[in-house]
């Protein structure tokens, strides 16, 4: 059974690149356009990992992490924050909210996969 990764990003091109990369590596992908969408799609699903952008309309990355961590099924699931280098303090905020780690944009597909392997093996 392949692992399921939920990815939330408001940029269609980043979403496409992320989905393509991780699907190609054999994972299943659920795409969401922002935090609220992600939260809706996460409900009732078995999800092994979450990749979320930081800045999104409706519900941003930090908000999404807080909401997810409050759900029993997402208490211990790895959540990776996609940030840009100008958001160092956001990284810390993300960690405080319960993020497992982060990946700095721009990143290459192999860097993304390295981080995924790092947190879900």
């Amino acid at each position, binding site marked *: 059974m392949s692992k399921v990764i939920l990815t939330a990003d*408001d*940029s*269609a*091109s*980043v979403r*496409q*690149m992320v989905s*393509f990369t991780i699907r190609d590596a054999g994972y299943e992908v659920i795409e969401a356009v922002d935090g609220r969408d992600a939260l809706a799609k996460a409900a009732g699903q078995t999800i092994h990992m979450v990749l979320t*952008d930081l*800045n*999104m*309309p409706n519900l941003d990355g930090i908000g999404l992490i807080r909401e997810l*961590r409050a759900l029993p099924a997402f*208490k*211990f*699931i*790895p*959540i990776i924050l*996609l940030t*840009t*280098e*100008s958001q*160092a303090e956001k*990284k*810390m905020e993300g*960690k405080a909210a*319960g*993020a*497992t*780690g*982060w*990946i*700095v*944009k*721009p*990143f*290459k597909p*192999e*860097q993304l*996969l*390295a*981080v995924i392997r*790092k*947190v*879900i*093996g």
Partner: protein
Amino acid sequence: MDKFREAFREEAHELLAELETSLLELEKEPGDEDLIGRVFRAMHTLKGSSGMFGFDDIKKLTHDIENVYDMVRSGKMAVNSALIDMTLRACDEVKKMVEAEEDGEAVPESEAALAISGAFRSLLEDFRGEAKPEAAHDGRVPRADEEKKEGNAHTYRISFRPAADIFLSGTNPLLLLNEVRDLGLCDIVARTEQIPSLNEIDPEACYTGWEVMLTSEHDINAIRDIFIFVEDQCTLDIEDITDDSGDEEAREDRKLGEILVKRGDISEPDLRKILDSHKKIGEILVESGVVGAEKVEIALAEQKHVREVKQRKQVVEAAASIRVPAEKLDRLVNMVGELVTVQSRLSQISTQRNDPLLIQVAEEVERLMADLRDNTMSIRMLAIGSTFSRFERLVRDLSAELGKDIVLKTEGAETELDKTVIEKLNDPLVHLIRNCIDHGIEAPAVREAAGKPRQGTVLLAAEHAGAHVVITIRDDGAGLDGEAIRAKAIERGIIAPDAELSERELYALILQPGFSTARKVTSVSGRGVGMDVVKKGIDALQGTIEIISKKGKGSSIILKLPLTLAIIDGLLVRIEESYFIMPLSAIEECVELTNADIARAHGKCIAEIRGEIVPYLRLRDAFAFAGQRPAIEQIVTTRINGGRVGFVVDQVIGGHQTVIKSMGQMCKDIKTVSGATILGDGTVALILDLPKIVEQAEREEAVGRNNSRY
């Protein structure tokens, strides 16, 4: 990546349009937080994606703007029409950049863009006072491709204790340990002493810490990078304990007690007290409660680790090698060849002189020479495995092309063969494997119908057999169809319609030029030229081919090759005063040929050997010797192209291992001789190319007697 770039362009246009609308609205309602947020996010997304897809100029420009709007968003800066104006101009620049990329031009960084960038930056600086060092935390981002540190392996002692609430961040510390394992030789011991009893334990907390011994070529930063996500959620100590002093013995076998002292787990006086009794130190320490059992366990792991590192080092040192150009080796082999010749002359002379002292020296030289020769030859030997691995790709690609499911298995990849033999073996093997895939193994559906697994197997195996290497290419395909081969051979005029052939001879027919059983020409095995090319290739290597096949079960093609081309095992024969070498690989037996035998055959060149009629040819005729043949000659029977042929010589002298010397340019047109060698007394002996002699004889006969064989 290009299709992502395309997606980005579309997205950029949308974002820019949205930006414009938001900016114009913002101009009217400068305090609207929602609008500010929208502008910021659009800039942010533009920046993020442009960087991702290689639009670096856009990224640079939007980066500065994003920073300004971040200030605006946090209320540190107010929106005014100048800012809106500047941002709108920036949007135009970005649009130009996106479009320019669309046209495929390289865009020089426009002055306008630089000016806008600069303006935004100065805005920022005005407000911030001084640029804050924001990249402080970004010094180390996880790198996918960490570079190995130059030079030798280092040994690290790593202590890692995650915070109790580590699981709440979605971190699995065991995955981190596995990453450490991937860096090199690693021993990990958990520290469990903090795990409380069931009444006190929080089942979702982490109570475990780890002591890791790692020997790796990666540097300390590569290890730290593994823990980058948890660096504020754990205590992590990494100590490089590599011993650079080079004094191996002193450190490698450090006693357990010393390790404990060094780790600070026990004091020196305590250790000495314990050493005075005579039990195993580990047990005593634990029993006496001086050191916790776990600490002993960890020290033991360290001891074991260091021993293992030492062992590996020795293995590596043993495997150390040097590279030399192949031509140097060739020269060495050549010289050894000459030396062998000189040595056998020395032996011969010493026997003739019958001088005990000289004989003693000659024998000594002979023994050393044999060692020298074997050693030199072994330098040229390479494992055949490197060739084997190349075929895996071939099998994969070809079977995919033909819609077949085939796996290649190899055995004996470590079998060593002379470098030149390996090189020349490549083409024949490619042909043979192609044949297996194309003609041998059936389509998956056909296999299933025949009750075989869908996946066909091609086995490529090599093994030593005396001075030869036997290479087997076996498939579990359809096998050869003997009747079809016979029919085709008759059709092609290769055999007579009434010819009686053994199974082996029948199969050997497919090696004949122009023979092909494939129903159609495919790109894989070509037009039926494959097998005779193989045959030529193997002949050139002084090897033989045997084909075994069972209809429906598969076929095996067995190649027998000499270990090296530099030396051959030959049979030394004589005609009048000339000596010749016949390669031993093809020879079956030697029998006498008397005048009576010749008379019985009514002038035909055939002899009856063990009830079988064997055609022969006289080498003295082939080489046009003028003298009289002796009353009793000898026939050396050989198997050439699946048939038996005898060669008549004056005398068979015996087996002779010889170093092959090439004949030089002058003689390159003489096909019937493949080389020469120098005998012990300095005489030259020619090495015969038997199949070529047969060919030539057949040609001459055909010219003379028009189209009948033998």
